[in-house]
């Protein structure tokens, strides 16, 4: 475990118990009526789910950046999460959502397709600009298809349901979502972990990596599988929560030796921390209705992306 992992694990240990108490109603375990019930059935699953999703998105972002050799890569921004959402919406629309497993399965398939499309379009030699453009195009295609599905939706009620869900939130999530997402994200993290040494080799480019014994096809499948599972599962239970995969690796990288393999575990921990804290913040902020988590993170993430662009400007032009 490296230094960055220890730091974020410690912060997470601190934030987790606090997150259980934080909310519109602050819980004092001794005073609040039904405190145990609220903690066990509402706050605990919500906090756990935030951490599961955050861990998956953080690690997915770190791995994607390593694979694409592009510090701007993010599963949300580059179309993976939007493709997962498209898959999920398609399953709504086709009426399969009645079955509990159809929606997550459709979301995973969408995410896998998104990652495969990105790898195919931009190829293995694509530069930062090509990957970024391809990612943004996949994202806007998925967004347009999702919008089409919504406008064609048979009734207004279903429509507003979809729109609310797309914005990404952890409101009213229960243990069911935790049990659904946790194993999928865990397997995804495992696959990304298996890919990590090969991602290090990619630091020197595709050809150098292959000359060092990296099997490009195996690596691609590990990435597609790992990202589909982590991102697909998180979209399936919480909608699109963007920018976690972009922000987190940047915060973690300066604390490590900067190789992708050193980034994956601390990015998972830092992602868990970021989503947990952000979800507490949207619960506490005094708005009439709760600010959607996905919107809140985009409000932080978009300026962050711009700041990165400005910082990288010299290198890109």
């Amino acid at each position: 475990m490296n230094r960055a992992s220890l730091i974020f694990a410690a912060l997470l240990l601190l934030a987790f118990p606090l997150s259980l108490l934080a909310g519109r109603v602050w819980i004092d375990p001794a005073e609040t009526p039904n405190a145990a019930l609220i903690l066990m059935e509402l706050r605990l699953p919500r906090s756990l789910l935030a951490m599961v999703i955050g861990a998956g998105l953080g690690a997915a972002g770190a791995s994607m950046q390593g694979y694409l050799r592009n510090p701007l890569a993010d599963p949300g921004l580059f179309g993976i999460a939007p493709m997962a959402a498209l898959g999920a919406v398609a399953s709504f629309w086709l009426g399969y959502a009645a079955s509990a497993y159809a929606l997550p399965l459709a979301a995973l398939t969408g995410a896998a397709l998104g990652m495969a499309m990105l790898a195919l379009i931009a190829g293995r030699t694509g530069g930062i600009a090509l990957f970024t453009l391809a990612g943004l195009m996949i994202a806007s295609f998925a967004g347009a298809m999702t919008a089409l599905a919504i406008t064609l939706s048979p009734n207004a009620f279903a429509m507003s349901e979809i729109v609310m869900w797309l914005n990404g939130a952890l409101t009213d999530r229960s243990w069911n979502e935790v049990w659904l997402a946790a194993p999928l994200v865990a397997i995804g993290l495992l696959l990304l972990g298996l890919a990590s040494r090969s991602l290090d080799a990619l630091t020197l480019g595709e050809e150098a990596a292959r000359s060092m014994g990296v099997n490009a096809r195996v690596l691609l499948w590990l990435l597609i599988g790992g990202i589909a599972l982590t991102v697909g599962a998180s979209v399936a239970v919480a909608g699109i929560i963007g920018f976690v995969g972009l922000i987190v690796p940047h915060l973690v990288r300066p604390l490590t030796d900067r190789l992708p393999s050193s980034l994956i575990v601390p990015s998972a921990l830092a992602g868990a921390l970021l989503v947990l804290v952000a979800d507490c913040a949207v619960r506490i902020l005094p708005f009439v209705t709760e600010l959607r988590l996905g919107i809140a993170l985009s409000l932080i993430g978009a300026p962050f992306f711009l700041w990165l662009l400005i910082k990288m400007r010299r290198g890109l032009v």
Partner: protein
Amino acid sequence: MTLRAENLALERGAKRVVDGFSIAPQRGQITAICGPNGAGKSSALMGLAGLIEPASGAVTLEGAPLASLHPQSRARAIGYLPQSADIAWDVSVANLVRLGRLPHRDRGTDAVEAAISALDLEELRHRPASQLSGGEKARALLARVLAGEPEWILADEPLAALDLAHQLRLLAHLRSAADADAGIVIVLHDLALAMNHADHAIVLEEGAMAASGPPQEALRENTIAKVWSVHAKWIGEDGARALIT
């Protein structure tokens, strides 16, 4: 282990870029692959490294086709230095060199230290890649290959972006690797460097072998005239020749 290409043909997309390429480089020697732009030098080198599947013919390591080897055992025997000096993340020199141990899946501290010291990188070990000069970066990237302790080092124009002093310095490093019994195969643009520093030279023209032999024979003036369409003349003495046009 002997590395050998026999009648190798390579394709990029539908285009045949190398045809009838045969080479049996020797350990302890520097073999230079020369040729005009687009002659297929880089493809031939990649084919020799096992990075392009042959369309026909074969590359063998100790008699076994490269394609039949596990990629990691191939990687332990053959180190490949691509032309691109692009380093995606701002890693330190020491971590960059350590990447060379990936084919071995170990830390290989001794080999890494030996590579760092062989290329005079001790003082730069903690310096991030972004703060290296062209010459320092070229040395660090070669050290990465050396850290894998390969028997064969295949380098694609390792001298391209370097000034004269750094070219000679890197060539000296390659020569000491050859003296340590590695086989070196490099793509070289500069014919004078090939003439003065290689033990064997191969000239490629449109994917086919135009000449192969000791550089004094392979890089004769009439070969240069035919392949490069340049009428040039060698002056000076063996080991210190210059090409004038």
